[in-house]
């Protein structure tokens, strides 16, 4: 701790000695800690096994695999591993539903269905939040305040557009694309599903969507909601499986569009697979965002922005502010404050309402993070981790940052997708721009300064799809999200997000 460790001086004032710092007249100081307050799980309903949701029915398959709670390493449920035939059944169902029902359903009726899905989800918001936390490891306070409310907001937002598309794109003629195949990641399962399903339905498409291997549960809960909402059979088909299931969707000839969120490596594979076909593609891939702190920034809020940028959802965020650029004149101050701030981060049981940093999503991811952190140490970067105890079971990693990092370090170049920050420095705005843009990615960036003109100058020079100023990791359904360079192309959210689901 860089803060002075010093005991409180005894008050010298003879008259002011009445309150001796005690709580009950006893002079020994008691340390006040937050007791564990675990979110109740008794109201949630998870089946022992989930089949595939195809053509409005729950259909069995040959193989199933377990999904575990990364905070306890206990199995929560078993889910279907969809085979190529299952994918074929799902696509066929979606195609039939598109031709026979959904393309003939009036837009305002489509809107009603989407509103209905949103409202039913809203009623079950707490259940969704608890399951999202159990399946993925994220702190319950985040699933309650970010994942679920935002997912709902996307459904509500796009429901509103469904019957107003001609006002969204005036004087243009357009039609739905048909069957869209969607593949989502494990970091924000329900939210990513909402980002993809809501605009697809609003524009009149039908959907085959696959959840990520480690986090399939909230998507199946969404399938139950869709069932309850009475959406026509086959309009949304929800399946689970690994990479080959995803490949079967991408390669299926009847799929007209692929929307993928995930790693850049898989994104490249998808591009190779669809080359030569007329499939539309949107990709949301990795990132290595620059979070840039100028010397005239509001420093305490910037430190919050750093914490929110990299430790939110354990750093499992494609737009995480994983490269911190601090102007050299305030570097020591910022690092000192960041160290102090990390001491009050509470790492542990994701279901504890006071937990700030939860469990790493999977054993594989934990291994990857550990390996990259080791490479940082090997390359001579200086590591900092706060003193905090981690639970014995489960996959956990301490919030970490490195100083003495060079642009050439692996930890400054590769996406770690964990709670690991690289601190780099710059001297002038020009240098900040050069360094920030010196990456294969271009998803997001953050700028911290009290000076408005500097914000505008920086925003126009940074090659990133989303740029936050004096804040970080803010999302809104009306605001488009997407990347430059190897962070992908296409936008989700807002009008731009609608456009991706229409043919013009």
């Amino acid at each position, binding site marked *: 701790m860089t803060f002075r460790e010093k005991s409180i001086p005894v008050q010298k004032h003879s008259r002011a000695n009445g309150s001796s710092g005690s709580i009950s007249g006893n002079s020994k100081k008691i340390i006040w800690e*937050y007791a564990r307050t675990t979110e109740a799980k008794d109201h949630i309903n998870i089946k022992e096994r989930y089949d595939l949701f195809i053509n409005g029915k729950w259909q069995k398959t040959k193989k199933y695999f377990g999904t575990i709670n990364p905070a306890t390493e206990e199995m929560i449920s078993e889910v279907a591993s969809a085979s190529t035939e299952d994918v074929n059944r799902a696509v066929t169902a979606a195609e039939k539903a598109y031709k026979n029902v959904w393309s003939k359903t009036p837009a305002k009726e489509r809107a009603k269905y989407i509103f209905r899905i949103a409202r039913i989800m809203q009623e079950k918001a707490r259940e969704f939040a608890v399951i999202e936390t159990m399946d993925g490891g994220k702190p319950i306070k985040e699933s309650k305040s970010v994942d679920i409310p935002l997912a709902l907001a996307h459904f509500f937002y796009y429901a509103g557009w469904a019957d107003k598309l001609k006002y969204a794109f005036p004087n243009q003629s357009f039609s739905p694309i048909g069957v869209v195949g969607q593949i989502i990641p494990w970091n924000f399962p329900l939210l990513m599903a909402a980002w993809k399903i809501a605009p697809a339905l609003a524009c009149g498409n039908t959907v085959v969507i696959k959840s990520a291997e480690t986090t399939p549960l909230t998507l199946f809960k969404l399938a139950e909601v869709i069932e309850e909402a009475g959406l026509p059979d086959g309009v949304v088909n929800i399946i689970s499986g690994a990479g080959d299931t995803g490949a079967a969707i991408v390669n299926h000839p009847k799929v007209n569009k692929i929307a993928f969120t995930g790693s850049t490596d898989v994104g490249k594979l998808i591009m190779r697979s669809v080359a030569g076909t007329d499939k539309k593609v949107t990709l949301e891939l990795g990132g290595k965002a620059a979070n840039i702190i100028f010397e005239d920034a509001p420093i305490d809020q910037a430190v919050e922005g750093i914490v929110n940028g990299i430790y939110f959802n354990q750093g499992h965020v494609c737009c995480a502010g994983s490269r911190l650029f601090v102007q050299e004149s305030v570097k020591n101050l910022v690092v000192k404050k960041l160290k102090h701030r990390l001491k009050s981060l509470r790492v542990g049981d994701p279901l504890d309402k006071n937990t700030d940093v939860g469990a790493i999503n999977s054993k594989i991811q934990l291994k990857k993070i550990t390996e990259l952190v080791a490479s940082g140490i090997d390359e001579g970067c200086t590591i900092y981790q706060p003193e905090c105890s981690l639970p014995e079971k489960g996959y956990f990693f301490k919030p970490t940052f490195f100083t003495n990092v060079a642009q050439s370090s692996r930890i400054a170049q590769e996406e770690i997708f964990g709670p690991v920050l690289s601190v780099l420095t710059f001297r002038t705005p020009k240098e900040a721009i050069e360094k920030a843009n010196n990456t294969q990615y271009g998803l997001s960036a953050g700028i911290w300064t009290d000076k408005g003109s500097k914000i505008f100058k920086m925003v126009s020079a940074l090659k990133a799809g989303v740029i936050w100023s004096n804040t970080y990791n803010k999302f809104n359904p009306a605001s488009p999200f997407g990347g430059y360079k190897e962070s992908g192309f296409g936008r989700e959210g807002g009008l731009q997000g609608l456009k991706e689901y229409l043919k013009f």
Partner: protein
Amino acid sequence: MNINTELKSLESFHLAVDETGAKERASSIAGRSIKKESKVLAIKMAASMIDLTTLEGKDSDGKVYAMCQKAMRPLEGDSDFPHVAAVCVYPNLIKTAKAALAGSGVNVASVATSFPSGQSPMKLKIEEVKKVVQMGADEVDMVISRGEFLEGNYQYTFDEVKAIKEACGEAHLKVILETGELETFDNVRKASIISMLAGADFIKTSTGKVQPAATLPVTLVMLEAIRDFYNETGKIIGMKPAGGIRTTKDAISYLCLVKETLGDMWLTPQLFRLGASTLLNDLLMQYKKEMTGAYQSADYFSND
């Protein structure tokens, strides 16, 4: 503007505060879930940090005597429940409070310096402060001249606090910024640092006579100023949010704010106070609820 060398170091503090960010952080800390034994401890701790306050034109010996009884024994018959830190009154009531509280360990705080507006000559303020200390006030709650501060006359603010501190002698000085009139967080941070540089023992949000009075975000900004001042100078300054803190939930949020911004060291009545008049009864009600499992009627708690 003339700035003397003592105030020069104001420039070494980064003074920008982003309002949106500060509010967001405060509300995130206020979202902490404090239950069970933590809650019981927090209730007792909050009670022990109260400056039980009455600041009205109609205050009388009778009113203050009764309040002092409550201050010493908030929960009659429960020796486990602490007394409050101090009672806070107008100068004319110091003697009454002093006599009522003699030997109890509860301090007497008096407002001074033409509270609440501070609109009178410096000389009179100094005399007033000397007088209240002479009358037995253990702690003095002064107000800064907001007009001078808002005119940019920071040297005046500095000199004012410094002079009052000198006049206080042994008594503890709390400097009220009246954040509701300073309006911006930049101003709050600047006024906090000037007051600390000039010798404040505590910095305090409000008089309670101006809205908004204490809020979580403004308290956060002041706590951060205290932390930075400590880092720069090694001096430990106390904090007192005052006005508008009425519920146990509010009080606990303030404690969380202190814990997460300054650390456990500051969680003592020596360094943190809650200026409040009605908070105590809500704490008592919640305490009884934790002890017995049921809420009791407000009629069971005295209104003194």
